[in-house]
């Protein structure tokens, strides 16, 4: 097992390098200099000042040197300083905002699994039943629905017409004056809509995947054996079949990381949640190169980690993987 993990870790290295190169190339393909924001709008910015500013950010050096010094810094987790007026270290800016993004994504992941797996299993076991057909339609619509639009509709319904749920931020204005029990409730109320919506996107995919897995497993010989030896249908389905059908779902866990993280940009800007997605959006608008690069990188690394965890837990659960 250890050998397998080490092997996987080593295979991550070239990917990681590739990721840094892509990030770097992307950021430097863009026309215009990051110092434009400070110089173009400023009539007093002389050519000399502009040069000094470029030198300050190493923008006067050749690209490969800029890349090498950037990677060298990343290796010690130094992502540079933000271009925004506060000049704070990028790493700290991101780290402050990471917990809320991870919390929302983890909760919505839980929600996806809790809902999609039973739906998938039931619609496979009762194939072609009314339930299967209804969930089939639900899945089709789920794939096509723009989630940011659904967010707007739910905001109108629950936030404005019914007034049950808050529609922006993660805490109320009077948060600091609430008694301890209410504080928790307040945060929960703020998280219901964002978590539900970010889960929605993954629901359709996973339930469909679960259904086809289950259908595949039910066809296998060992299920026939289980039936032949007279096990109850319940035991056959929920003990023998379900366990095997659940195995590949572990990989989905890893594969859905980029989608969830990418989606956080949309949700966090709709619901004004101060997470990494919102920071990314604001930095993109302000052409804050170091922050954008840092988040792009962290997003990719989180994806890579998600895949690694999925692969390793798959190998733990299924010994056949380790051998091949």
């Amino acid at each position, binding site marked *: 097992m250890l050998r397998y993990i080490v092997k996987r870790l080593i295979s991550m290295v070239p990917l990681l390098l590739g990721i840094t190169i892509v990030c770097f190339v992307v950021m430097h*393909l863009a026309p215009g200099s990051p110092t434009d924001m400070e110089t173009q709008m400023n009539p007093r910015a002389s050519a000399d000042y502009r040069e000094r500013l470029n030198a300050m950010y190493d923008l006067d050096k050749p690209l490969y040197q800029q890349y090498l010094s950037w990677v060298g810094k990343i290796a010690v987790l130094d992502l540079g300083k933000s271009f925004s007026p506060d000049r704070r270290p990028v790493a700290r800016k991101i780290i402050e905002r990471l917990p809320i993004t991870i919390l929302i994504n983890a909760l919505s992941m839980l929600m996806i699994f809790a809902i999609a797996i039973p739906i998938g299993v039931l619609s496979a076991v009762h194939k072609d039943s009314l339930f299967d057909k209804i969930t089939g339609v639900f899945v089709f619509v789920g794939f096509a629905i*723009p989630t940011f639009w659904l967010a707007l509709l739910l905001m109108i319904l629950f936030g404005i017409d019914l007034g049950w749920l808050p529609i922006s931020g993660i805490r109320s204005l009077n948060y600091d004056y609430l008694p301890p029990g209410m504080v928790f409730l307040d945060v929960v109320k703020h998280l219901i809509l964002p978590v539900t919506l970010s889960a929605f996107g993954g629901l359709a995919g996973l339930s469909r995947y679960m259904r086809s897995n289950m259908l595949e497993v039910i066809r296998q010989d060992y299920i026939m054996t289980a039936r032949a030896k007279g096990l109850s249908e319940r035991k056959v389905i929920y003990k023998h079949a379900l366990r095997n059908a659940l195995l590949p779902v572990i990989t989905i866990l890893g594969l859905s990381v980029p989608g969830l993280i*990418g989606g956080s940009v*949309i949700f966090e800007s*709709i619901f004004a949640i101060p997470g990494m997605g919102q920071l990314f959006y604001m930095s*993109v608008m302000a052409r804050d190169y170091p922050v954008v690069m840092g988040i792009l990188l962290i997003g990719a690394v989180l994806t890579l980690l998600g895949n690694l965890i999925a692969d390793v837990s798959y190998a733990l659960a299924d010994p056949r993987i380790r051998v091949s």
Partner: protein
Amino acid sequence: MGTDFWKRFKKNKIALAGSCVVILLFVVSIFAPVIAPYDTNEINLKLVLAPPSASHLCGTDQLGRDVFSRMVWGSRISLKVGFVATGIAILIGAVLGAVAGYYGRWTDAVIMRFVDIMLCFPTFFLILAVIALLEPSIWNIMIIIGLTGWMGITRLVRADFTSLKERDFVLAARAIGASDLRIIFIHILPNAMASVLVAATLGVAGAILTESALSFLGIGVQPPTPSWGNILTAGKDNIDIAWWLSLYPGLAILITVLGYNLLGEGIRDSLDPRLK
């Protein structure tokens, strides 16, 4: 793909429903000038944020412009984005997949490693980063959605090529001295087009969704050009007073994407009934 395909396609309800929606969308965008009752940029300050009525089917926006007319013209944008972006993705995906699958060895290893790297990025992050650094314009959006959406197609085409290149007709072509390029593009690629067609149809839907999300965030199609996404931005700004700005454009996106997805699904079933 032959007569069998069409026979099955015509019998497939899903495929027909999808085709109807897609054809309807084409008709709407081609005849947009005739269908739209008002000029898309005709500002009417006496009728700001008017709810839907007989004269304004989907109400008016914050400048008194007719939402229905803007949606009709917006269908052109989504059609354009969908097809151009997918076209770019297919071009890159098919060429890279063909080369990787045909030559194998290190060529394959390098290309597929690159695919793996690209797949590590949350696509939306990558698109957002590039678009905001370039000027947000409809052409930039189409190009970037295309440039970030070819990886799946590469994998599909490569898989087809690795099995097809061992077949007799390829050996025969090689025996009569056909060049690699000829074998790849004239002999093998047409045989791999079936799976690409399905992926492309679904890709159009995906590109339309992405465009609307970008325009919604204000970094896609820029106003005053109407797009479904940027009408929704106005919907969000006026969320407490004008529900119609939020409801209708999203419905248009939903129906469009649903249409392309159904069509793709229908094509898949008709190509190979066993896959169902």
